[in-house]
């Protein structure tokens, strides 16, 4: 972490960058949040630990409109999102100084099963402990680092950054699960079970738009759900259309563009596993049109703006 | 179900597709033995005249050589119709083309089992 601050200070002081985009301390170790730092002085609040799961790439859209370069810290998975925004001309590479930072897996408070959490320690980067210490109202508890990790880190897409100016820090192997296992489990259900599962999950949605706001692919200047283009504009749940179809349409709009960064599920206050929609599309795309990882490069054709004459017919896989 | 419908069902053939080209009759090795010729057989089915077919000897003369089935350009396949008519005669009228009493006199030294089996299938229920 100190190395990152040192780098940020140096660049700010030399004037090479006008600001730094990173994570800022919260009240506790477990609630840092994304922030811009304009002065070396302000970097005292900079933090980088296991709870810095937030993907900063989307903030680079706004950063690109400001004067001067922005230094941004991207974890390996975040760099895919940045690259995807780059190929969609949403960010200005010229105005970014990208430091690829190492990652040892990111944590979710929601995975820590203790009541009355006061603070958590042991997640400092790069010196994270095997075991996290959790102070609670009822005494100190411990939990293995791995057990508190975000779902996405168990199926991490790799330690490599796909875009950067400089790399700082090592990353760890965190993969210990099959990325599509949960999708396959659902696919194996009967239609009735599938429907019951999704109905119960989606019924939790309060349409807070957190998923949409955090998603790097959901960065339209004006979302269709906020516009008159489809008669689907009302934010309040007065039209049942967006009420019922929001998540399906959101998944379709990001299909072939979603890097599977998992932010949607991370931020959902209701704990809906929203990544299961995106991952279903990714799985289908891989199976039907060849392996494709959004954001991995700038040239390859995206699956939904491409075709072959021999593509599968709609309804493929139906009984 | 009337007889004609039954013939269509058993044969799986639509006789209305026939264009009367006669290729079946041109190909039939039993043509000269038949009173109702293969192409006419189709017409009789269309005209619902199963009675006449039942009276004719044609059904018993078809060799099941499938030449008409192979060559029919209209997918009518008269051989299938003829065999279906024969099935109906055997099943419903209890008619038999061969009675057990006749058989000993017909046998010779060399007759293969295949011939007896086939004959039973073709003539009897």
């Amino acid at each position, binding site marked *: 972490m100190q190395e990152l601050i040192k780098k940020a200070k140096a660049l700010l002081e030399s004037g090479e960058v006008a600001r730094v985009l990173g994570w800022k301390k919260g009240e506790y170790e477990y609630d840092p949040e994304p922030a811009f730092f304009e002065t070396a002085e302000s970097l005292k609040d900079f933090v980088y630990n296991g709870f810095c799961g937030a993907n900063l790439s989307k903030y680079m859209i706004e950063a690109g409109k400001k004067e001067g370069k922005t230094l941004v810290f991207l974890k390996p998975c975040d760099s895919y999102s940045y690259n995807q925004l780059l190929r969609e001309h949403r960010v200005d590479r010229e105005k970014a100084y990208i430091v690829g930072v190492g990652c040892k897996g990111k944590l979710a408070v929601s995975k820590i099963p203790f009541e009355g959490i006061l603070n958590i320690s042991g997640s400092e980067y790069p010196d994270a402990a095997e075991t996290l210490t959790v102070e609670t109202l009822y005494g100190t508890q411990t939990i293995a680092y791995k057990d508190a990790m975000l779902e996405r880190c168990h199926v991490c897409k790799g330690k490599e950054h796909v875009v950067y100016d400089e790399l700082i820090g090592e990353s760890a192997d965190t993969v210990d699960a099959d990325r599509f296992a949960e999708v396959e489990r659902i696919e194996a259900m009967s239609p009735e079970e599938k429907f019951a599962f999704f109905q119960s999950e989606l019924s939790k949605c309060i349409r807070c738009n957190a998923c949409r706001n955090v998603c790097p692919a959901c960065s339209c200047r004006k979302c269709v759900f906020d516009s008159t283009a489809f008669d689907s504009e009302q934010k309040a749940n007065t039209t049942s259309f967006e009420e019922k179809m929001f998540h399906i349409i959101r998944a379709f709009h990001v299909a072939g563009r979603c890097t599977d960064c998992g932010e949607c599920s991370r931020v959902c206050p209701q704990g809906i596993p929203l990544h299961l929609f995106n991952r279903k599309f990714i799985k289908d795309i891989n199976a039907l049109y060849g392996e494709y990882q959004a954001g991995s490069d700038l040239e390859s054709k995206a699956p939904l703006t491409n075709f072959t004459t021999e593509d599968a017919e709609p309804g493929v896989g139906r009984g | 179900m009337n007889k004609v419908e039954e013939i269509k069902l058993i044969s799986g053939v639509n006789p209305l597709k026939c264009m009367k080209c006669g290729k079946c009759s041109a190909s039939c090795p039993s043509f000269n033995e038949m009173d109702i010729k293969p192409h006419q057989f189709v017409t009789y089915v269309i005209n619902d005249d199963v009675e006449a077919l039942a009276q004719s000897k044609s059904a018993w003369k078809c060799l099941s050589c499938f030449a008409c089935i192979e060559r029919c350009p209209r997918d009518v396949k008269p051989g299938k119709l003829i065999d279906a008519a024969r099935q109906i005669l055997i099943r419903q009228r209890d008619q038999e083309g061969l009675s057990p009493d006749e058989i000993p006199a017909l046998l010779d030294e060399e007759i293969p*089992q295949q011939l007896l089996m086939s004959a039973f299938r073709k003539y009897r229920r």
Partner: protein
Amino acid sequence: MKYSYFPGCTLRNKAKDLDDYARACAEKLGFSLEELTDWQCCGGVYPLGADEIASKLPSVRALNAAKEKEQDLVAVCSACYHVLKRVNDDMANVADIQTRANNYMQLDTPYTGETKVLHYLEVLRDVVGFDKLKEAVVNPLTGRKVGAYYGCLLLRPSNVMAFDDPENPTILEDFIRALGAEPVMYPYRNECCGGYISIKEQDQAAGLCKKIVSSAEGFQADCLVTACPLCKYNLSKNSTLPIVYFTELLAEALGIKEAQE
């Protein structure tokens, strides 16, 4: 290579030669025929009625037995081959027959046409290969002019049998050539011999057979080969030319016939 083998009723007695030579030649050519236990007669003719099940069951049993052995099913007799292949096609493609037959059979796994039905000649052509067969010949039948007689059952209806070109087949000619003899092409080799009609209408069968035989004679054939016991019976009664089973010719060329005699 091992095949399930369906000899058929006639090969058990009147056409013993056809059977014995087939097995012996198979061993010589590197494949073997394992006779199915408890096979039942195919019925001689394919039951044309689309609504008939009972008469198709013996074939289904044989087909399923081969499936359970994970073997292709080989027949030598044209009629058995014809019936097995057509019933197999029904089991694969006609839902009604498939359902009713399986309901009756009560198998653990329903039979849906998985078995591949082969004629002995197809094994020679597609598995052994006529080139290899030629190499295996020890007594080439040089100078012999042999007419192939196909009859109906091997070829028609071609969309199901898919054995060879229904009007201008070549498999037997290629076979004859491989044995060192000269195949004689004559136009009536796929015309009907009269089949079962000969039991009652011998004159009609005689007329048909004579047309076939005299055509072959006209093209200088000195014998005819067939794969069908009934064709052999009908033709033999009306022919000055010798009518032989193709396996007999094969055995002769492979040097097996002498050994057995």
